[in-house]
């Protein structure tokens, strides 16, 4: 594993402006990913995971604004790039597997045509024949019959479609893939096999990945490093084993508590009363303070600092769990 950072996100802050006010969906988030590394982003629904994913591709709706921060992809900051420039980096350097794979394909074209079109756009030197061969190989890799290339999306089952989406994401040899809850909509058995497929592929192609899920078990399975999100902020970031053995942030701790063992039965998040805050009016200071058992005086006044706890373990909390 080389030490070169494929992507570096520094102090990313993004808001949606709505009629009721601004939604602070991503606040001051930083992380970086090395080649071949898989970062898992975990957090409850609505904590801004998808917003981060879409910011990375700058694929945001009209009402979204990146307030500050840098997204350095292969040494180049994407944030100031105009749309037409950004477009060329998409898929060739950074691609995405969407949350709703069911409708990720246009119903009126064959799946093959929709993948070829990406290859044609970013790799104009590849002939149509070679592109086809490449797609057929990708299909084999993700466990689809090569004949499926010429089929229409409605001829695919949900699981097959998700595999095809993965094949499409790989089609232009990106440096990094973002997978946003790629298996959430699928049934458990399919979910498992696709998850394995993704990890195998990622290892084999030595690709970087951001894997997003609300499910700690899934994250534990696929990622080398885990970032825990709460209410638009990253509260803890560490290597996977480290964070499971030694969670520092009270929220991470509670999250881990609800999954005593990755393979064991799932328990409810009993330790945490209350609900995640409304991002229209996020709480002052630490956004977790209304629910936090460790809460101290300054928690509702000052935003906790992002501190290094050694071993590449970072956390933002004024009163962390005891460190054994």
């Amino acid at each position, binding site marked *: 594993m080389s030490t070169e950072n494929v992507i570096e996100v520094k102090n990313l802050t993004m808001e949606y402006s709505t009629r009721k006010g601004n939604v602070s969906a991503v606040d001051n988030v930083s992380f970086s990913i090395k080649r071949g590394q898989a970062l898992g982003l975990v957090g409850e629904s609505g904590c801004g995971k998808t917003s981060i994913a879409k910011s990375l591709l700058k694929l945001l709706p009209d009402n979204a604004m990146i307030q500050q921060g840098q997204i350095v992809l292969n040494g180049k900051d994407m944030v100031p790039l105009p749309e037409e420039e950004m477009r060329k980096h998409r898929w060739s350097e950074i691609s995405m597997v969407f949350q709703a794979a069911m409708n990720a394909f246009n119903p009126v074209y064959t799946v093959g045509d929709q993948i070829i079109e990406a290859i044609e756009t970013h790799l104009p030197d590849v002939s149509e024949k070679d592109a086809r061969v490449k797609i057929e190989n990708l299909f084999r890799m993700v466990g689809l019959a090569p004949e499926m290339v010429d089929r*229409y999306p409605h001829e695919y089952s949900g699981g097959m479609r998700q595999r095809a989406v993965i094949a499409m994401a790989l089609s232009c040899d990106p440096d990094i893939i973002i997978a946003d809850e790629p298996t959430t909509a699928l049934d458990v058995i399919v979910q498992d096999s696709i998850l394995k497929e993704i990890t195998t592929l990622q290892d084999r192609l030595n690709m970087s990945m951001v894997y997003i899920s609300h499910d700690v078990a899934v994250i534990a399975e696929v990622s080398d490093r885990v970032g825990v999100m709460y209410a638009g902020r990253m509260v803890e970031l560490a290597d996977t084993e480290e964070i499971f053995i030694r969670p520092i942030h009270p929220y991470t701790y509670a999250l881990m508590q609800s999954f005593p063992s990755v393979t064991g039965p799932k328990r409810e998040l009993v330790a945490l009363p209350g609900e995640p805050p409304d991002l229209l009016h996020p709480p002052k200071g630490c956004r977790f303070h209304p629910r936090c058992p460790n809460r101290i005086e300054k928690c509702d006044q000052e935003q906790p600092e992002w501190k290094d706890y050694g071993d590449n373990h970072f956390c933002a909390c004024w009163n962390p769990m005891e460190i054994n």
Partner: protein
Amino acid sequence: MWSYIGKRIVQMFITLLLFQIATYILIDLQPGDVTDLLIGNPDITAAERARIAADLGLDGPLPSRIWTYLTNFYTGNLGVSMQQYPRPVSEILMTRLPRTFTLFMAATILSFWLGYIAGKFLAWKRGGAWEYASTITGVTLFTIFTPLLAYILLWLFARQLDSWISDTFGIDFDLPISKFNTPSLWRRAPYDTNTVFSWMNWNFFAIVMIILIALIVSNYIPRRYRPALRIGSVVLSIGGSLIWWAFISGVGLYAWDIVKHLFLPILTLTLISFGGNMLLTRTSMLETLREDYIETARAKGLPEGVIRNRHAARNAVLPVWTALVFSLSNTISGGIITETVFSWPGIGATLVQSVSVSDFAVAMGALTLIGIMTLIGHLIVDIGYVFLDPRIRIH
């Protein structure tokens, strides 16, 4: 797919039969019979009238009269016009059908295509003065009293623009305000207007077929040659036809006269249907732009134009195509009015004219033809949809 089309055709034929029976009964309801118009005709005696009535089976009971009418109809005998006695109705209608057909096809294709282009761009460039102006234009065209629109266009083009062009450039464009040809010109012509017009229609048909075939074939060839084939088929077929008419046919001047007569009616009818098509395409496009696959297309880094045309518009066209069924009947109504205003001797004007003199043999023929035209239109829409949407085509 073929069995589906076959079933549709059978279903439509039954609908047509029922429709004919219904119209026959409707016309039969009124007192007297179709031969009453002949009472005023000094050339025809009462005895002869009775013979005509007997020929038409008018003395039998209703079911047998309907039977006679239907068998006659399907053997090509639509009766004779009582106003232009004894000219056969089928002859009258057959000379007029191509004119209506051309007007209708040209206006339908143009308004669909223009409405599609306009709606597509309006949805893409949301908001601002354009959206406002286009909505007003669309609603105005959709709701304006058709004769008023026709007269405004007549005045604008045939009066104002025409005199402006001749004042400024000294060219006498002479845009005609009514009828089908300029009789003084055609007196010297080697062929009659209907002949030249039918050549033009065949030519038009050939162009449409060439483009259609090119479009279908283009889906089976390597992608990089597709645009060349598509654009090439359009340019070559239209350009070639123009060159043939202008330099080779020898009747270019006469064809031009027909074109000049066609211009305003086609423009009017196109505008009538354009508004609805534009508004609908815009709405449909706005909905399509919210689909997940549009976001995928963006994520793939495809150029704007490709996302708009190949992904969004291609899907947005589906509901607009389906709605053609309703817009077709709008266009036909509009066509009846347009033909009447421009004295364009087609089926619609024939219907109005024959009804106003109670020549019901002709009126019934015209009404049935209009019905058949609508049914064929519906069939084309159905078949077209099968090609447009692979979810229907491939189960």
